[in-house]
């Protein structure tokens, strides 16, 4: 029943463009002492974009050091990418947002759209 409802809702709200979930990821202890981690997923339904730049920021949009398998993630059209973001325990109270920003190709035409989606970290 729940699966059918979920599928129905997914079909009712089809995903287009640039999407990143969850919107409010939770930081958890990683397998390394003093390092926290959270998991996110990107979905690319932009035909004109294949790369997304990842970043972690504080409330004033200052960058915060982080580690991930990708700084710039390659996500093909209609592709999903699950990735982990690691930050130091010391930065836990400062880290506010994890963002992904589309990287535009040089041969794109017209006025272009750079999309950026930011999830807010839950403490």
């Amino acid at each position, binding site marked *: 029943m729940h699966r059918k409802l979920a599928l129905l809702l*997914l079909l009712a709200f089809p995903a287009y463009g*640039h999407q990143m979930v969850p*919107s409010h990821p939770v930081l958890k202890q990683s397998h390394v002492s003093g390092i926290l981690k959270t998991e996110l997923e990107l979905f690319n339904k932009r035909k004109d974009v294949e790369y997304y730049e990842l970043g972690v920021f504080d409330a004033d949009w200052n960058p915060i050091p982080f580690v991930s398998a990708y700084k710039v993630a390659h996500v093909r059209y209609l592709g999903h990418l699950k990735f982990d973001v690691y930050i130091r325990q010391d930065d836990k109270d400062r880290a506010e947002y994890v963002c992904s920003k589309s990287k535009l190709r040089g041969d794109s035409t017209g006025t*272009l759209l750079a*999309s950026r989606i930011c999830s807010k970290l839950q403490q």
Partner: protein
Amino acid sequence: MKKILLACLIAGTANAAEIPIEGTVQSQCLINTDKPGVYGSPNAYTLSTTPADGGVVPIVRYDVTLADAYTARITYPTDFSSSPSLSDSVTWTGSVTVDEVSSVDMADYQTDSTTYDQTREYVLSATGATWFAVSSTATYGGGSNKAFPGGTYRAVVVAECIAN
């Protein structure tokens, strides 16, 4: 003969596979380009997305599935991402407006929005889709109306969706 049929049926049943389909519903914000923009050239020194000038205003759509959970920030361009070499200054003007909404609860989005520099900010207080029009005009020559050099000009609209 019956035994053979039964054996075939059993074999067929054994070969049938259940393929699960799973989906997770969670709050999300989507950004989509519904209509890419085009610069028209009403005169030699102006490039504009205004339809009357031969341009096309780009339309950006935001889809949100949770009310009051996101803020949309949209910035019109203030420089070209690629262009021929320009020796003089370019003056930019632009605007961001709500073009269409999917819910009457979004009727006040434009009046409730705030603006700073080239950016307009909207609190997405209702679920559904909102379409934003992002117009921009570039004038060359720093007031002396010099002709743009021939070539291809591209500019970038920045659309952000930030979880609250």
